[in-house]
């Protein structure tokens, strides 16, 4: 038992990568795997339990095939997850590096902004932005551009502050390099690995947020399949057809596990 657990811990990176790869392949190949349309209803075949008909994972209350809904939802949810992470990742690292490198007034202002964001009810912001842009994918992108950078800034700031007085940065300064060049060429490559580790856990968190918005009815809108709205539609039938809300949740958990295994694996490797 102990040995097995230890072994599992050391191969986390590969297990995570394989899990994620399988999901991505299934999502990309969804049109070839699924023999049913994810949106078309079949009112003669509603609420078929998994394995009882030609629908492998059953059908929902409108007779839509669960397997194809789950895989098509993976296409949307995963694509939004990756795309919405790009801007916060880059801007957060740079804000954090500026704050850590210059210190003083820059740091004071940036940390005041950070504190304000923390004191701000997080979901108030998310909901307001969702109402502002109308439910849908733009709302998600804009919301995470506004709040997503915080995590990366928090990682980059102390790392940069600790490198600022290191010999190689001092050497670069003596060579007459500009602050901008030092930040981009000397500090950034050293901050990047830590930031990538955080990226993995933050993507899992972002996926949960996307799904949560869908659950609240202000995320990805119907008829586009989304794991969150699927769970919310299935909740009313939890007593009679629990698979309706369990299966989409399992997909989210599966993705989350694969991402955090990759993150853990990378952290071990780069330590």
């Amino acid at each position, binding site marked *: *038992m*102990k040995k097995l*657990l*230890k072994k*599992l*811990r050391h191969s*986390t990176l590969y297990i995570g990568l394989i899990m994620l790869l399988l999901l991505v392949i299934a999502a990309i190949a969804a049109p070839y795997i699924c023999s049913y349309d994810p949106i078309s209803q079949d009112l003669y075949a509603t609420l078929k339990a998994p394995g009882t008909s030609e629908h492998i994972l059953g059908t929902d209350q409108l007779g839509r095939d669960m397997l194809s809904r789950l895989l098509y939802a993976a296409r949307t949810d995963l694509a939004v997850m990756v795309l919405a992470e790009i801007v916060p990742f880059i801007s957060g690292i740079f804000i954090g590096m500026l704050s850590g490198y210059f210190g003083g007034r820059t740091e004071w202002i940036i940390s*005041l902004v950070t*504190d*304000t964001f*923390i*004191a*701000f*009810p*997080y*979901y*108030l*912001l998310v*909901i*307001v932005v969702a*109402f*502002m842009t109308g439910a849908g994918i733009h709302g998600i992108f804009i919301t995470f551009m506004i709040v997503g950078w915080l995590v990366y800034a928090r990682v980059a700031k102390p790392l940069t502050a600790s490198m600022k007085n290191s010999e190689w940065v001092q050497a670069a300064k003596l060579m007459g390099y500009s602050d901008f060049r030092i930040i981009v060429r000397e500090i950034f490559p050293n901050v990047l690995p830590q930031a990538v580790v955080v990226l993995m*856990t933050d993507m*899992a*968190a972002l*996926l*949960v947020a996307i*799904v*949560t918005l869908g*659950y*609240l009815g202000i995320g990805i809108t119907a008829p586009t399949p989304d794991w*969150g709205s699927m*769970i919310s539609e299935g*909740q009313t039938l*939890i*007593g009679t057809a*629990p698979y309706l*809300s*369990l299966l989409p*949740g399992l997909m*989210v*958990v*599966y*993705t*989350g*596990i694969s*991402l*955090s*295994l990759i993150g*853990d694996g990378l952290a071990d490797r780069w330590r």
Partner: protein
Amino acid sequence: MTDKIKEKNHKAESDKSTASNRSAFNKSYRAWFIRALFRSLTVIVLVMIAVFFIIRLVPGDPAVMVLGEHADEAAVEALRQKLHLDMPAGQQFIVFIINILTSFDTGISIKYGVSCRSLVLQYAPVTLSLILLSMLITVVLTVILAFGAAMHRDGILDHMIRIIPAFTEGMPVFWVGLLLILFFAVKLGWFPVGGVGSGGTAFWKSLVLPAVTIAFGQIPPLIRSLREQLIEVLDADFVVTLKAARIPKRQIFIRHVLRNSFVPTLMLMSVNLSYLIGGTLIVEKVFAVRGMGKLLFDAISNRDFPLVQAVALYCAIFVVIISLVTDMIAHRADPRMLE
């Protein structure tokens, strides 16, 4: 007998060393506290400014929301004037701030027609009880499990605790809540499926599943943090010395190990708690609890500006107090943080 004498000597010594540092500590502590207080007020003001203007960016007119889509234009205009919505936003903000400063009045809800404060007071107790119960569960389980893992390093519990976060990090809170409903309410019938019971026992009983749901998301990172700190302190020279001096184990744990290792975990918990204030919305929706989250969500959907501002203000004050108290405890426990 010898143990007792040693304990006494030990205590006297530590008292003497702190006494000489005490006045210096108090001085820098006071300076820090004034700065922290000023900063907290700044944060509250910034939150209020942000909420006030952001909520006005949302398309939709509160007067139309109250009177309906097909209301008479003159009636809408009259209501707009009554609510001061015809003034420029800057002027509205000044009125709002003056009312808060002079009488701590956050105005009257557009939708419900009663004062926002009474609405907050009506909805807050459920949410606060929920947070309190979940914090209780979180603290007890975190301390027990982290101690177990740190004491038996590389044991089964230790390995489990390091693997479990990988599973819980990606679990949506509302889905965990649904699982709990499915097993403990639908299958076993131990707890109600949703809603809040009235009266002592029924009230707390209906909050158990929501509180466990919240705690579930909080515990794994806290255990990880406390375990790391505990291991670091347990390996420190001074603990080895204390053990060699035959100080009772329980005393080493509580007075020395725990005191020196809980601060980072406490800080992490305070940040999590801040997120929770708005984040109970989801758990409230899953379990059909009428709390602050629901009040806020409905206020935004109704464009009930005064109510949104009031909820945000009370939440911000609560968050700022939590982080201030946490910082105070942290500085008392570890005066090195003042430097």
